[in-house]
């Protein structure tokens, strides 16, 4: 900022233009020009670096996704992001569980489940904002407070009703029809960053579920370097 004394001592009054001319005559303009020039240069360099780092970030994400595909194809153990998510939430103290596979029996036929995606398809090509959106009223429902849940694997379009079996004490949820369910023949093409290929069959695998600490030990050392390089 300019010194107020310059305005007081100036014989021409408080006009900013005259102050500017005085500075010019005094030679201080050189330093002011140098300052703003250096500031502009730093801004250009910083902006260019940020742009370059953003481009590099996108490339690294693509490369990391492709490496993940290769690792998942070559691996002998089974890794699931759902298990990773559940293990982490259990570490945070939440009571989480997931059930997959054919149920031993079915008792109750009217159990509705809350949809995990109340906003619908965020990855739709149509424009969607990230503000609160109306949830699909057809997908929300009440939930029975039961500790266990048997899930029915559905290879085709799901049917809302299941055949009850009297022997199991556990309730079986009945899911609403999913009209937008895709057939296996019309799956989208695999993107560069997305992983794995859609499976048309479910081959039998000797699944070995690795615990999170085991994966963490091997993955943490690998990820720490990437995190450091990413920053």
């Amino acid at each position, binding site marked *: *900022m300019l010194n*107020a004394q310059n305005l007081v001592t100036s014989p021409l009054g408080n006009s900013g233009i005259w*102050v500017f001319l005085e500075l010019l005559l005094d030679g201080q303009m050189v330093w002011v020009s140098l300052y703003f020039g250096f500031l502009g240069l730093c801004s250009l360099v910083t902006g260019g670096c*940020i742009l370059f*780092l953003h481009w590099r*970030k996108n490339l690294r*994400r693509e490369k990391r*996704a492709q490496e*993940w595909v290769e690792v*998942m194809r070559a*691996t002998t153990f*089974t890794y699931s*992001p*759902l298990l990773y*998510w559940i293990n*982490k*939430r259990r570490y*945070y103290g*939440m009571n989480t*569980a*997931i*059930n*997959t596979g054919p149920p031993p029996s079915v008792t109750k036929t009217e159990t509705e*489940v*809350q*949809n*995990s*995606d109340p906003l619908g*398809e*965020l*990855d739709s090509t149509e424009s969607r904002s*990230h503000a*609160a959106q109306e*949830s699909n009223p057809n*997908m929300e429902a009440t*939930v029975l407070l*039961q*500790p266990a849940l048997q*899930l029915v*694997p*559905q290879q085709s379009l*799901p049917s809302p009703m299941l055949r009850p079996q009297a022997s199991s004490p556990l309730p079986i949820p009945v899911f609403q029809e999913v009209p937008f*369910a*895709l057939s296996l023949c019309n*799956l989208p093409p695999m*993107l560069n*960053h*997305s992983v*794995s290929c*859609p*499976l*048309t069959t479910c081959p039998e695998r000797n699944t070995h579920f690795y615990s*999170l600490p085991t*994966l963490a030990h091997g*993955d*943490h050392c690998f*990820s720490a370097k*990437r*995190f450091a390089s*990413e920053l």
Partner: protein
Amino acid sequence: MPVLKDAMPLMKESHPPPQAPLPWILPSLFAAFNVVLLLVFSGLFFAFPLVSLNFSDPGILHQGSNEQGPMMVHVVWVNHRAFRLHWCQKCCFHRPPRTYHCPWCNICVEDFDHHCKWVNNCIGHRNFRFFMLLVLSLCLYSGAVLVTCVIFLLRTTHLPFSIDKVIAIVVAVPATGFLVPLFLLLLIQAMSVSAAERSCEGKCRYLQGYNPFDHGCASNWYLTICAPLGPK
């Protein structure tokens, strides 16, 4: 008697004993300390979160090794609340609860909050704390600039209108313009963290008013800000 009265002011006007001049370095050191403090705190709380938000991993999730296709319906229980998992058509796997696909970044993000256009990156599980730190730092910075300008204008009210006052007003107006929405954003995000909600979910999305991710205000803040993130 007037002589005595005249003598009084002369006694009062006696000069104090001469003091040694203060060394120039002490006031300059204090000024330098203030500048360094400003730079350090700005860099620590402002530049570091801003830069790291541009390039940090928000919590990208990829497909596992045993995906069984979109026909398989997965249900996850979280504290006695069931979530039917959605199939991500782009990433080809069943997304865990609160995991959404960002159309700008084309990735699935764990605990997705929103895509921040200011840093061109998603805000998710692994960088939400940096986002909160950045918003807080920006609020403090804008507030400090605004308070400084207001104090300067108040203390120079008796002085004539000068270019200094013009610049102070020119700086204070955009500082106010940034401070108001930033403060609102900070409040909204703080309320969301307290209730263990996410921006993209909105309010009243949970059935019967029960949020299974809510552990209480203190625990929610601890899990969001301090809890270890774990491996990627």
